């Protein structure tokens, strides 16, 4: 990515590396101006500081940066000693991304470095913005879940579930117990597959390369089951308003039993590989710390908040789909560092597998869709027998599901935190407005709180531990 800043960084760097030469010996005023480019408010003086289509190319002045002001007074648990004030010329700005492999997508971080220490971080997003909230306004409620499943592409079931529950909240309908149980089964398996992929990429980012292969291996077992059930490995469009798209396939109990034993075995293997690995511990303990107060301020939920010690899980606080009837515990951490997030997520995999096991044991019989004819199309055979069935079928597929006016907010506990769907209906078959409360959006916003005053090598570890999905951030 060519970037005016890179060129500029080269200039500054070149100047720094060169022996004290004539051009550096310029008047004090000139050098100050050169530095001002990186601070702010000097568009008229230095053309490189102007905003481009890459986004704003400069930081706010230090005394206006709210993230920095919040950082004031926070002790960072790190093994370096903060150097005394360094002359400002030694600061440089590095653009990390948007194509950096450890950003897991297209996230760009502007890092202001003082030697090896990060003094300021500015996350820049929007590279994957495809206007899904606008698209949703043109799709009817039956088509909507096809759209939302593509937002957080690693947790599609959670997006579908939040959307379907929001629509059901507006419709005022309940789904049969079997649909609820299938929804819990699929979302918990999705949490497992998402955390497995996180473990894989996290391992790769901090140098445990075999972890990468192992994580994908176990995730594949989950995706095989998704494919067998929904027909697709990702973007399932399986959980829909009124229930789920299809019943579970024949022999699903055996598949689940096989999956649980394979994943459990795999997770044991990860722990054997990582838990006492001194390199892994060194790179994760005390790194990327976020305090519980900062989590609340920035809206960070999910495993990151739980690793900071906030005991907050929507499955316990506002249970949905009857998930409160299953026994599970919510793991929390103490330090809020990368290592605690690792432990919380590994334990969440085990707890989710426990829920899945209970669902298998108690799967109720019955319909997997609501019998409401205004929401669920009639079975094919009924169309030949009943005029009403034919009319309902025709209306559903020409107009779509009619939803009364109102506003609904519904959230579920996704693998990355609270996934919320804020749905405004003015009546009719299409939502007036659909807003998504994306957990990764809040997590990316909190990155400065995690990274400021840490070492540049820890950026990758801290970023990987937040598990951002850029499709979810940019929507």
């Amino acid at each position, binding site marked *: 990515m060519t970037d005016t800043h890179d060129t500029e960084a080269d200039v500054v760097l070149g100047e720094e590396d060169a022996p004290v030469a004539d051009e550096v010996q310029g008047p004090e005023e000139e050098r100050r101006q050169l530095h001002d480019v990186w601070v702010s408010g000097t568009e008229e003086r230095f053309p490189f500081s102007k905003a481009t289509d890459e986004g704003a190319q400069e930081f706010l002045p230090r005394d206006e940066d709210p993230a920095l002001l919040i950082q004031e007074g926070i002790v960072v648990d790190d093994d370096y000693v903060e150097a005394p004030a360094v002359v400002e010329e030694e600061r440089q700005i590095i653009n990390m991304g948007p194509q950096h492999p450890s950003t897991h997508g297209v996230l760009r971080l502007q890092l202001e470095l003082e030697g090896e220490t990060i003094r300021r971080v500015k996350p820049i997003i929007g590279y994957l913005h495809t206007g899904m909230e606008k698209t949703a306004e043109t799709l009817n409620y039956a088509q909507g879940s096809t759209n939302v499943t593509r937002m957080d592409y690693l947790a599609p079931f959670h997006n579908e579930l939040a959307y379907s*529950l929001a629509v059901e909240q507006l419709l005022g309908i309940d789904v049969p117990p079997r649909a609820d149980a299938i929804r819990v089964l699929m979302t918990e398996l999705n949490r497992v597959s998402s955390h497995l992929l996180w473990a894989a990429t996290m391992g790769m980012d901090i140098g445990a390369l075999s972890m990468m292969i192992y994580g994908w291996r176990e995730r594949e077992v989950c995706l095989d089951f998704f494919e067998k059930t929904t027909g697709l490995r990702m973007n399932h469009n399986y959980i829909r308003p009124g229930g789920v798209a299809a019943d579970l396939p024949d022999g699903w109990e055996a598949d689940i039993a096989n999956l649980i034993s394979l994943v459990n075995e795999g997770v044991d293997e990860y722990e054997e590989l990582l838990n006492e690995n001194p390199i892994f511990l060194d790179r994760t303990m005390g790194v990327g710390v976020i305090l519980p107060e900062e989590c609340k*301020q*920035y809206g*960070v939920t999910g495993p990151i908040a739980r690793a900071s010690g906030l005991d907050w899980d929507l499955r316990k606080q506002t249970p949905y789909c009857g998930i409160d009837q299953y026994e599970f515990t919510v793991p929390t951490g103490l330090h809020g560092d990368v290592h605690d997030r690792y432990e919380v997520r590994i334990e969440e995999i085990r707890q989710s597998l426990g829920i899945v096991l209970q669902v298998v044991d108690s799967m109720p019989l019955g319909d997997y869709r609501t019998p409401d004819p205004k929401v669920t199309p009639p079975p094919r055979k009924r169309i030949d027998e009943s005029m009403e069935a034919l009319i309902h079928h025709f209306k559903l597929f020409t107009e779509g599901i009619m939803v009364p006016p109102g506003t609904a*907010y519904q959230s579920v506990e996704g693998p990355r935190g609270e996934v*919320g769907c804020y749905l405004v209906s003015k009546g009719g078959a299409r939502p007036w407005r659909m807003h998504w409360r994306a957990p990764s959006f809040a997590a990316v916003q*909190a990155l400065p709180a995690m990274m400021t005053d840490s070492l540049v090598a820890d950026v990758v570890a801290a970023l990987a531990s937040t598990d951002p999905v850029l499709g979810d951030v940019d929507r």
Partner: protein
Amino acid sequence: MTDIERDLDDAAPDAETTDRRLPDHPTIAALLEPIGAATFEVKKNASSDAIYHTMAVPVSEWVGFASSAKDAGFDLFIDLAAVDHYTHAPRFEVALNLVSMTENLRIIVTTRVPYDDPTVPSVTGVFAGANFYEREAYDLFGIDFPGHPDLTRILMPDDWEGYPLRKDYDIGAVPVEFKAGSADL
């Protein structure tokens, strides 16, 4: 612009029900008492017994209400969303979603601002996490948040014109050139 003005002239008052009583829950009743005329609603989650409260406050009370909500225990910032009601004046709505972790309560506070002055004071001073969300609302709806430290576009490119999630902003499409039916072939 004339289309919008004509639509706004035809605007009907919002048909949402208004409830002037105070809510049953003591924390939320105490929160709403100073506002007096605020409307509130108790809503139930789907597939669950969980409830949440929605309330509308005037824009002049916006920051003060967020601040007192934070003092009352609603200190987990969840979400800030904007809605364009278009033909229903006042046109824009901003919804703030807060959670009290101690009492396991959720409130959604809304306020409405008109098309000709879409200005909502920023709550970034109360909840630092509103930063990105207000930038998103500014980017996609053109709502101004005075007091925001860095109100720039966040999802769209910096040189983008217009506010895409407004209802009068077309989706746009690349015209398809159909060749099969033309006389040349």
